[in-house]
């Protein structure tokens, strides 16, 4: 598999550069791969996704770095040029499908708008493609005649996915695509993504706070913390053998339906203010394994295996730290001691 998207040292600033919501993020998506972009609220994952699509809110702009999609640097393009590539190069699935679908038009008309106006298809060709797309996401083509409000939440989300796929984009970016859905419906939408990945070779970034969603769906994971990607690698490696203490903490803070009475280990404290991040490693104030160097120097990406890296000074010791991270006592009082 070759690399489809390569993001290097990307930074996005708000408020005239005073706040960097994304500050030197690195990640890559393989052709036909699904990357799970995991992080807590405010870590910059949504900003990163929006920056790639050129739909940053007013006042925010990319200040450095590059994002090569199939060789073209998106950062070098003007935001307008980036937006012009929407649908064709990049397509978006938002958290609530209602913001992607126009409530006053039938789905068929919304499909036509994208396929004819953006894609230059004829009306007949567009209708045929719309049927194809609805079948691909598991919706009955007869539902094309319906308005969005006639769909249930899960079906609406699938219709939004179908719309995003209309012009065969190289990459789909889905922002929390299943967060607002109930468990069973969530599973149905996840399965839609999975079948698109296996049948059509869809490449996607799934932005989510839910590690289980990533585990279920993605083959690659990027973990974000306070504006930076702190660990990146194959889902199996990152989730089973996390090498960054933050990832270890996340995994241990997550209740599992199957595991026995294991006590969860919360990560104490809260993420640093992005207007005034600590020097060095941004996780250091909450990290039970932080050493003097962590508060001084920004940790480089250290390779664990050729395609798995972690931005931590103690990456080589990860195997020894992992069992300690599983003990809730390790984390207790860390944030207060360093505050």
């Amino acid at each position, binding site marked *: 598999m070759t690399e489809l998207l390569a993001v290097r040292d990307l930074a996005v600033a708000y408020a005239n550069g005073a706040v960097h919501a994304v500050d030197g993020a690195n990640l890559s998506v393989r052709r036909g791969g699904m990357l799970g972009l995991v992080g*807590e*609220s405010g870590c910059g994952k949504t900003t990163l996704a929006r920056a790639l699509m050129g739909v940053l809110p007013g006042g925010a702009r990319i200040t450095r770095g590059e994002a090569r999609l199939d060789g073209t640097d998106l950062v070098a393009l003007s935001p307008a040029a980036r937006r012009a590539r929407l649908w064709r190069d990049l397509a978006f699935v938002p958290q609530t499908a209602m913001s992607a679908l126009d409530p006053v038009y039938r789905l068929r008309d919304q499909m036509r708008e994208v396929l004819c106006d953006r894609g230059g298809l004829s009306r007949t060709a567009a209708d045929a493609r719309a049927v194809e797309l609805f079948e691909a996401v598991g919706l009955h083509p007869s539902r094309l005649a319906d308005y969005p409000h006639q769909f*249930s939440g*899960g*079906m609406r989300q699938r219709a939004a996915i179908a719309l995003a796929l209309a012009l065969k984009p190289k990459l789909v970016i889905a922002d929390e695509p299943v967060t607002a859905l*109930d*468990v*069973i*419906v*969530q*599973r*149905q939408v*996840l*399965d839609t993504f*999975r079948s698109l990945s296996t049948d059509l070779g869809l490449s996607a970034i799934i932005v989510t*706070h*839910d*590690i*289980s*969603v990533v*585990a*279920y*769906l993605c083959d690659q994971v990027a973990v974000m913390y306070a504006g930076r990607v702190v660990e990146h690698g194959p*889902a*199996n490696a990152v*989730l*089973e053998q996390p090498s960054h203490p933050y990832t270890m*903490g*996340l*995994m*241990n*803070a*997550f*209740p*599992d*339906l*199957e595991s026995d009475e294991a*006590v*969860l*280990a*919360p*990560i*104490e404290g*809260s993420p640093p203010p992005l207007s005034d991040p600590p020097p060095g490693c941004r996780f250091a104030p909450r990290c039970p394994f932080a050493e003097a160097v962590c508060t001084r120097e920004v940790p480089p990406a250290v390779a664990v295996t050729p395609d798995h890296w972690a931005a931590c000074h103690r990456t080589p010791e990860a195997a020894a730290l992992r069992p300690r991270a599983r003990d*809730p006592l390790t984390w207790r009082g860390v944030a207060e001691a360093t505050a």
Partner: protein
Amino acid sequence: MSAAPEQPLVAAYGLAKHYPVGRSLRQVLRGERPILRAVDGVDLALRPGESVGLVGESGSGKTTIGRLLLKLTEPSAGQIAFAGEDLGRLDRRATLRFRQRAQLVFQNPFDALNPRFSIGRALAEPLSNTGVPRAEHEARMAESLRRVHLGDPAQVLERMPHQLSGGQLQRVVLARALVLRPRFLVADEPVSMLDVSVRAGILNLLRELRDTLGLTTLAISHDLTLVRYVCERTLVMYLGKVVEDGPTAQVIARPAHPYTRALIRAVPRPHVDQPRDALPLHGALGDAANLASGCRLRNRCPHAFDRCAAETPALIEIAPSHRAACHLHTA
């Protein structure tokens, strides 16, 4: 119902809550008055000190049950008894006494505290509302802040809600519920608005409170993993009815109702290596305003047979203290 070994703290019989719904022109012309059966005939009993999880999808009626048990809304039918007293017949004084004993933890900590009240004022309000002498306020507030591990009370009390993080706010919400020293606590989606790393702390706290205070708790959630972590017993709801009731470990390991089975299978696990086979359930959640006859799941259930359409299944015991409402267990 089987005879309980102990008098339940909270008990409901034939509990129902119906809402009128908006009518289409055709329904108006035909004189139809459709109703939404949010809760439709629920019996339940919570023993003192028991922690019970109430699981279901949105629209299953689980939040309505919580509101009914706390007398925040009146039932359309049925009765609720709290420590033997009928909630429907409480006068003003008795209602205030009930408020002291039954409390609620809210879903959204950012909304559950009045933004213009300091934490101190938020915690003092329940005390002055229920007539606790002012001399005791300070000690009671400090006590409940200690229970939720919120650091130095003197400092916390002066803070305004916007100065605290989501996790801290949720601890304050818990402290406000505990300041009245309740016996019964309803937690409605207590962590769904919180970040993953903070959730664990709140869940641990709920567990700790359950063990140290002997509280009777009802945790309402769509999230089975939460219930699995905090509750001894689990009730599963589907479209206004309880379809399964049993010890949590047993319900998760050996679900007896097809709906529970699908619910458990649908939860993604935090490991790459996990089952991904198709769910044993099709279609979407039914419409509580337009219910099918017989079993409410029958249109989605792979095991449905004739009897499911003809007869509504009752909750029957299928193993000790494990009940399910499915004809498969009587066939």
